[in-house]
């Protein structure tokens, strides 16, 4: 288990404990206080790390029934189940009174703060691997049900544009053009001043940010690192973990009628052409790997996710043409273009369209 993930263990315990308290108070309205030693009934331990895997298994340590009332032991399992339900449903219809629901959902702010883009936590019944998948997006959704901002690990690249040395406050202008106030210890002052005094020197800032409903970082409340950015940092974005060539190749196995009576097997030569095209454009423009899908109409669809813009390219393999669509998330704004790869410059127009919109994220 990575050391930085250890706080997640404590945060998960706090979440289950808060849920158990809410459930207990809900089922015992006559009681003004919780039973003595209530919190001691929940202890979590790192059970093992599975062979050949980096997945740590966290379990509840059994309590001694003689020292702890049996019905309270059940209460913690009920709370774990409730947490699993909340994650599965996205927080809809928790079955808890409104005040309790707010208290429980607020605890998700501490749990999962360090989750990376491709990381998740599975909350499952004892002894089982299948359960509710908890990732950054689900966490965001749960917290935003009761509040307008949430806290999460941030990793931003930009230039320092202002500094208040007395208050340890800096202003980071990100490569997306946003200005983000950040609280950083004087330890980071030399790197910050270097960026402040020299145009074009990018720094990478990591820490805990406050993020709004729109997904924008409003401020960084705890800066854990300020360092000079690595080359190519300005191109960091989301992408498919499977190489584009392998994705296109996998579509060869789709038979006739794979979707409905009209859908046909793809031509192997056409797929080879597309794999080379997408691979070459990706290499030339340095954009992330798209997600590649078949379409019932016999086209190939490539999608590039983003936090601001999402880009979709539908390629007609017969005509060697593509429709390019960029969708501005959270709005009705759509931008479109059409390219013919049989004409000079078609590949460049595709690359430019993708990069321009992903850089707007």
């Amino acid at each position, binding site marked *: 288990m990575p050391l930085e993930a250890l706080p997640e263990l404590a945060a998960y315990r706090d979440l289950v404990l808060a849920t158990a308290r809410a459930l207990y108070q809900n089922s015992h309205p006559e009681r003004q206080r919780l039973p003595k030693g209530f919190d001691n009934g929940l202890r979590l331990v790192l059970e093992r790390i599975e062979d050949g895997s980096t997945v740590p298994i966290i379990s509840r340590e059994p309590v001694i029934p003689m020292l702890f009332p049996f019905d309270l032991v059940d209460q913690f399992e009920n709370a774990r189940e409730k947490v699993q339900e909340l994650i*599965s*449903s*996205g927080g*809809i*219809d928790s079955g808890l009174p409104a005040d309790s629901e707010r208290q429980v959902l607020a605890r998700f702010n501490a749990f999962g703060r360090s989750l990376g883009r491709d990381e998740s936590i*599975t909350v*499952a019944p004892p002894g089982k*691997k*299948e*359960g*509710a*998948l908890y*990732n950054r*997006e*689900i966490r*965001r*959704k749960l917290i935003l049900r009761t509040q307008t901002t949430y806290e999460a690990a941030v990793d931003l690249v930009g230039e320092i544009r202002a500094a208040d040395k007395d208050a340890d406050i800096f202003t980071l202008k990100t490569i997306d053009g946003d200005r983000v106030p950040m609280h950083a210890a004087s330890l980071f002052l030399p790197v910050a001043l270097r960026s402040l005094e020299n145009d074009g020197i990018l720094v990478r800032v990591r820490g805990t940010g406050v993020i709004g409903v729109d997904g924008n970082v409003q401020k960084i409340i705890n800066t854990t690192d300020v360092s000079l950015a690595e080359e190519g940092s300005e191109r960091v974005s989301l992408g*498919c*973990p*499977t190489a584009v060539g392998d*994705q296109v190749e996998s579509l060869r196995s*789709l038979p006739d009628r*794979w*979707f*409905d009576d009209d859908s046909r097997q793809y031509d192997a030569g056409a797929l080879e052409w597309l794999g080379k095209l997408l691979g070459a454009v990706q290499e030339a423009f340095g954009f992330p790997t798209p*997600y*590649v*899908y*078949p*379409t*019932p*109409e016999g086209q190939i*669809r490539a*999608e590039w*996710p983003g936090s601001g813009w*999402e880009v*979709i390219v539908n390629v007609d393999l017969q005509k060697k043409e593509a429709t390019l*669509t960029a*969708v*501005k*998330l*959270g709005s*009705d*704004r*759509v931008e*479109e273009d059409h390219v013919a790869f049989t004409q000079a410059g078609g590949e460049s127009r595709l690359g430019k369209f993708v990069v321009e919109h992903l850089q707007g994220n």
Partner: protein
Amino acid sequence: MSDDSGQGLDDGDELLFRQIHPSFVRDGRPTGQAFRPTKKDEGKLSVARSTLTTAAQAFHMHTRLLSLPSHGTWAVSVQECSQHELKVFSDPLTVPPEKVADPAHAFVDFRGLSNSRTESKATQLRNEALVRGRLHPIGGE
């Protein structure tokens, strides 16, 4: 699917289950086209209502009773459709003309939208569903 629109749904918390073809999921991520009607759907995106069925029952109906492939049950809520200015109508299916009755059937109304608007709304619905994750079967890809 019936020709006439049924009653509009207005319970924002109601989930709308959508079955997604296995080829429409790549590395756990469904394509946006899974949340837009195909040409044959005539602007009506078929879904199943959570007040009348469950994610598991909807999956069973699709794969066992209708013998259609599905990667699993995903969902958006009525409220999320409403946020993207999409109306939802109940559309219970009966025998005949259908082979299998489905009282939980409903549709998200994409009728009259341009291709680009349809693409935009479908992409954003997919992102809502992605946040919620696959509801059945739970776990794995």
